């Protein structure tokens, strides 16, 4: 797929060491448009939208904020806590705004499966349908999210 000048800028911002240490693409050889497109197909198959996923992640994050970031149990089976560190992250898509460096971990206590995501991840999923590239530090697998968090 041919990249526009804007796509090239976005790709540059997703590289390691620009916004985050390892970048947003992991070891994925696809460009970000292809990553988005492939994940959208998975979402369609699962019958969920990116908004559904983002809203669910935000729900857990908010529950944790309501508990002043301390560990809290949500809906009886999810253990949720948030770590906040100093600083903010910008969106690699050059979307306006910055996102607090908050890292929420949700653990499904029945399966033991955990997911850690930042405030920026919620934005990337909601607005850009971007779950990050394979093996990226904060890559979230749509299939696993739907199986474990809904």
């Amino acid at each position: 797929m041919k990249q526009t000048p804007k796509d090239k800028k976005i790709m540059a911002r997703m590289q390691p060491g620009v916004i985050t240490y390892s970048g947003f693409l992991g070891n994925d050889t696809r460009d970000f448009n292809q990553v988005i497109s492939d994940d959208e197909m998975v979402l369609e198959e699962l019958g969920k939208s990116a908004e559904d996923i983002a809203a669910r992640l935000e729900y857990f994050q908010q529950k944790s904020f309501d508990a002043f970031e301390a560990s809290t149990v949500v809906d009886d089976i999810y253990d949720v806590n948030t770590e906040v560190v100093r600083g903010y992250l910008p969106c690699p898509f050059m979307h306006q705004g910055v996102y607090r460096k908050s890292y929420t971990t949700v653990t499904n206590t029945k399966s033991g499966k955990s997911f850690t995501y930042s405030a920026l991840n919620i934005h990337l999923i909601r607005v850009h349908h971007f779950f990050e590239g394979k093996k990226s530090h904060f890559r979230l697998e749509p299939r696993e999210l739907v199986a474990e968090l809904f």
Partner: protein
Amino acid sequence: MLSRIFQDIGLMSAIGVILALIMVLAQRWLSNYGEVTININKKRDLVVTGGNTLLASLADKQIFIPSACGGRGTCGACKCQVFEGGGPILPTEKPQLTKEEMADNVRLSCQVKVKTDININIPEEIFNIRKFNSVIEEIIDYTYDIKGVTFKLTEGQSIDFKAGQYVQLETKPYAKVKQKAIRAYSISSKPELNNRIQLIVRLVPEGICTTWVHTQLKVGDKVDFTGPYGDFYLRDTEADILFVAGGSGSAPIKSMLEHLREVGTSRKMTYFFGARSAKDLYLGDEMRTFEEYFDDFTYVPVLSHATEEDHWEGKTGFLMPYFKEAIRDPKNTEAYLCGSPGMIAAVTKSLINDYGIDEGKIYYDSFG
């Protein structure tokens, strides 16, 4: 036929070269703003070469406005008032500015380009901020993800700061990181030791600067930083003190306690430190030493999620219920808080509503 093709290719190449030359010359001509004057606080003029950002132009003249994102317009720390010559507010600035700030001529100095004479207003204390060169003298592993790093200033330099203030560290390109990054860290050493500073740095997932500190820095490395910054510092009163911190928030509190040990104090002081489990506790020995030294200082670590392996017999849960035993006169108590926004919000709310502490006597350094 073939010669015609070569002729056309040659012609196209020549046109391309000419256009490129025109663009280079135009760029040089159009972006040459010559010398321009920055008037600061209607008191002093700086003559700089036009075309750079206001933040960079001031830094060239050794005036350092706080900036935690390296001039990308994402941290909002470099705000200053621009009265004339700054041009219209840019879309990159708007997310960081409130309506009131926009009406008050507040701008992000990293986004404003100095193209003409410009009038600005910055706080006077910014003139105390300087750039320092240092050599790493010591690195201590406090926990699995927290290090204490001591930076010894190069010969002839000294830093004048208040306990509680912070500096901005400049990383160097390393591994996958091709550009320098700038991040803020509270000073954890006492101001009286003015030829070196210690910082406490917690490893942040995917953090460019904290990864550098934790994986690259070694004793003897040269590191630059600017400072001191911030209005979180110990007030010189006789009021009782409540220190509250979590995570790497211990840094400014340690600086304040070391300072008080130097100058002497009889103030009643209690330090509540919130951690998740025992493996997140650090500086315990130093705090016990302070307890022995001061007439009335108590260190209270509280674990929110003590594990069985911790064999923890101390306090658990939220910090707030334990304040009761530390506050003897709410009207004569100051609180110094450092940690996450959630912790700051919860503690502030409790101190005001449950314990009657005056909001104006609650000072904090929030990570958010």
